[in-house]
């Protein structure tokens, strides 16, 4: 899959909540190639940090030539990005990796935390298949995702750890119910490993095709450093999350 490095222009970098920002970058070549589940590896032009940082492509506008990132401020890099202003330049390497394979039939998308980001683009493409979204977060601050998803989702289930919105508990606690009530043909999930492992287990139980999107520390993002590899459960081979993933068949992982 073709990757390139471009200098994009930031068109928007607005706060979604206290810790999460929404960035829109003009980068037509990347937008043009981007598929749901792929990510970009970014850097400010004059950075106090050394490495690039990986972020899922939350959405693209191929007409406008823009990509959207939704990111949580967790450390030095994301703090740096959060200070970028509209009009500033941003180096983008991408689009990287193998995204979600779009399957036929009724989709269930399960996301946790910022793992929900790539599900926006995905649910937009799956809209006609009436996707069901199941998203989980710590508290009601996470509810903002609903705004991004409601246009494409047939139904959105929300769980919060503290019960401040939606179901109190974890996504996988609510999932069996959803699987029972709906005829799900394919599951797509992105979020914490422990969540995805639970989702995969249920998918196996219900014998539903399941794709998971992994997150690993990355240095290169282009398959050379081997910082991001794991042993595939099916293939027994070393797999690179960056260029062979980040999306894998659940069975290759869990």
């Amino acid at each position, binding site marked *: 899959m073709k990757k390139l*490095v471009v200098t994009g222009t930031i068109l928007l970098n607005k706060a979604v909540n206290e810790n999460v920002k929404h960035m829109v970058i003009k980068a037509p070549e990347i937008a043009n190639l981007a598929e749901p589940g792929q990510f970009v590896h970014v850097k400010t032009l004059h950075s106090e940090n050394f490495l690039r940082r990986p972020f899922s492509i939350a959405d693209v506008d191929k007409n406008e030539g823009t990509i959207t990132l939704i990111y949580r401020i967790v450390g030095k890099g994301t703090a740096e990005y959060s200070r970028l202003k509209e009009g500033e330049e941003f180096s983008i*390497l991408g689009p990287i990796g193998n995204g979600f394979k779009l399957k036929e039939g009724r989709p269930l998308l399960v996301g946790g935390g910022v793992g929900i980001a790539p599900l926006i683009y995905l649910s937009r493409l799956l809209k006609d298949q009436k996707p069901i979204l199941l998203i989980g977060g710590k508290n009601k601050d996470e509810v903002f995702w609903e705004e991004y998803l409601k246009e494409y989702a047939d139904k959105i289930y929300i769980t919060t750890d503290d019960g401040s919105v939606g179901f109190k508990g974890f996504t996988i606690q609510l999932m069996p119910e959803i699987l029972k009530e709906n005829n799900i043909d394919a599951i797509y999930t992105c979020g914490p490993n422990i969540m995805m492992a639970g989702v995969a287990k249920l998918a196996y139980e219900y014998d539903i095709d399941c794709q998971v999107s992994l997150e690993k*520390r990355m240095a290169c993002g282009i398959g050379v*450093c081997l910082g991001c590899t794991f042993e595939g459960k099916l293939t027994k081979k070393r797999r690179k999350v960056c260029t062979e993933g980040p999306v894998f068949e659940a069975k290759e992982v869990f």
Partner: protein
Amino acid sequence: MNLSVKIGNLELKNPVMGASGTFGFGREYEDFLDVNEIGAIVTKGVTPKPRAGNPGVRIAETPSGMLNCIGLENPGVDAFIYDILPKIKKYNTAVIVNISAGSVEEYAEMAWRLDIDGVDAVEVNISCPNVKEGGIVFGTDPKAAAAVTHAVKTHTKKTVIVKLSPNVTDIVQMAKAVEEAGADAISMINTLTGMAIDINTRKPLLGNITGGLSGPAVKPVALRMVWQVAKAVNIPIIGMGGIASAEDAIEFLLAGATAVAVGAHNFIDPSALKVIADGIAEYMQKHNIEDVNELVGALQA
């Protein structure tokens, strides 16, 4: 203008190559540059058997650098010879195979097995700090380093480059030992051993606790060592450690390196090898330098 340099019997188009472990097997860079135009590909370290590498987190960012504890993940020398080499020997550039092993005998066998068409040189990694069998004892003991060098040299007709560890008191002693043992060239430096801690979990950030530090942070140390060794040996040096620009590369040439390798910076800019080679040419133009070899060791100190 001449940009080509010689490392042992190896003629390189230009003095800028991709450092082992940061350049994959070259093919991964096809999107970003013309692999035929770079100085050389140095492969990821290859070992006698396939290796899965270290468990846990393998990468940590540090100020102006990074730690890695990949642990020599690689498909092993068989897979290299049968699956990978056929795909990369087509490139019109030198292929230098970086090798690691657990004993002098294994190093010799690796050298012998790689004495084949498509391989232009072997770079003997006696300095990987991340795996016990990776040769760190060879990398800190001049006698052991010499023994490995000799064994490799007598088992291949290819150019033999020995890669030195910076984690030593006296790098010159190491360099002289491998030169005497027959090395055609020296490459330096490998990573400095470092560590990082997550103060919230109170655990090491890296799965292997310690890892190898590389990137611009280490450049001053690398440059100093290249300068020291260049004064002491007669074989060419491939300098590396923190190179991120043509200016950095030129510093290494002036200090006495005949060629340079770019490591971690490839991760920031995957077209770095081209940018840096072009930058060297530009500098030469500006300073009326006809032959890049004029820069080698031209430091006025």
